């Protein structure tokens, strides 16, 4: 299988903060790597770890999840639930062999367009450093 040089990143962003933050990064013309594919969810509390598992199995190099800062959730407590779930899911993925650098979880508010661009660049760089290591979990049955 040919090794892709450019890492593919799945970013799962909450509608109210992080997605708006990504929007702001766009309208403010902050450059960030084109490796990031964004999925919008209503709230980070909507993020089922099965989405993260699926992303890795389908061959994504890295997954990032971002929601509103703690205390700022549009639905009051969604991000607190997300924090617990994602922390556990992360431990499980690490345990079966996903490199810890392939996952990134953070809080980005609607005003932090700059932060979004920075997080994306940093995460992409991290994944580029991992390009020599095996993409664990990724399906091998299909020649992609």
């Amino acid at each position, binding site marked *: 299988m040919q090794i892709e040089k450019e890492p593919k990143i799945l970013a799962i962003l909450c509608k109210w903060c992080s997605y708006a933050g990504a929007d702001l990064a766009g309208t403010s013309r902050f450059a960030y790597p084109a490796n990031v594919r964004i999925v919008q969810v209503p709230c980070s509390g909507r993020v089922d770890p*099965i989405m993260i598992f699926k992303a890795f199995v389908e061959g994504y190099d890295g997954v990032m999840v971002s929601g509103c800062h703690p205390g700022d959730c549009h639905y009051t407590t969604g991000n607190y639930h997300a924090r617990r779930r994602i922390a*556990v899911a992360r431990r499980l993925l690490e345990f*079966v062999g996903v490199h*810890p650098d392939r996952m990134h979880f953070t809080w980005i508010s609607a005003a932090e367009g700059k932060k979004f661009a920075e997080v994306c660049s940093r995460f992409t760089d991290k994944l580029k450093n991992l390009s020599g290591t095996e993409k664990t979990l990724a399906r091998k049955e299909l020649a992609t």
Partner: protein
Amino acid sequence: MNEMRNKIEELFKNGEIDAVLGYREDPATGEVKAAVFKKDEALDDMVFDGRCVQNLVNYLPTLVARYRKVGIVLKGCDGRSLVTQLVEHRINKNQIVALGVGCEGVKLDGKEADKCDDCATSMSPIADYEFGEKKHKKEPAFSKVEEIEKMSPAERWKFFADYFARCERCYACRQICPSCYCEICVADQQEPKWIEPSAKLSANTMWHLIRAYHLAGRCADCGECERVCPQEIPMRLLNNALEKAVHELFDVRPGTVPDEIPPLVVLSKEDPDTILEGKNE
């Protein structure tokens, strides 16, 4: 054992229970299996020893639907399992009489079961009556999980991928698990189809990850999934890894404290953000 039999007879006589879920030795074959003892039934072939491997809690939901009150013989691990069921309100505590028995470890294929190595609960954490010795053994440990954690990520994946590839998706692990009782399992769900039904590595990986994750903070480590697995996939490793994770992250040991709400059901504003960071970062 006699002490327990007498107690059960007394409970039957007083009308406190209508049936008892225990272990019966088949006089013909000598096999020990789960059995329901009803009122006026002889308790002579009721046994409790190292051959009583099965987790009886899995039979409870059907029994409490049929009988007013059910007694259940509990090993330490089964007791933990019962606690998780009570917390989730799957079974009503008022319908149960818990008969805890001091367990000295069970045997599988002639040798002590793996799950007994790191077990610290010789007696059920929930028991209306206790029989036999209550031994306070060591602190629960996760020696096998720690061995895996020493490996590099690629080595770990190689280890698990070999096992996952063998899975034939019979879902015996799901059927035997007392905590796996969704009406429509995510693995059977057609739309969206998160997990493909075919037995190939990618789909098997999805299944084993989500099975383990859904039990995070709920699995009491009764070890039934691994026991029934025809391919001997070490599912307890995944379960234990998450048990260790919830203990480290939220200071919870599933099943050991009655009435403790599973950690992934509640939220805490006090959780530090550092829990989102990788362990090896």
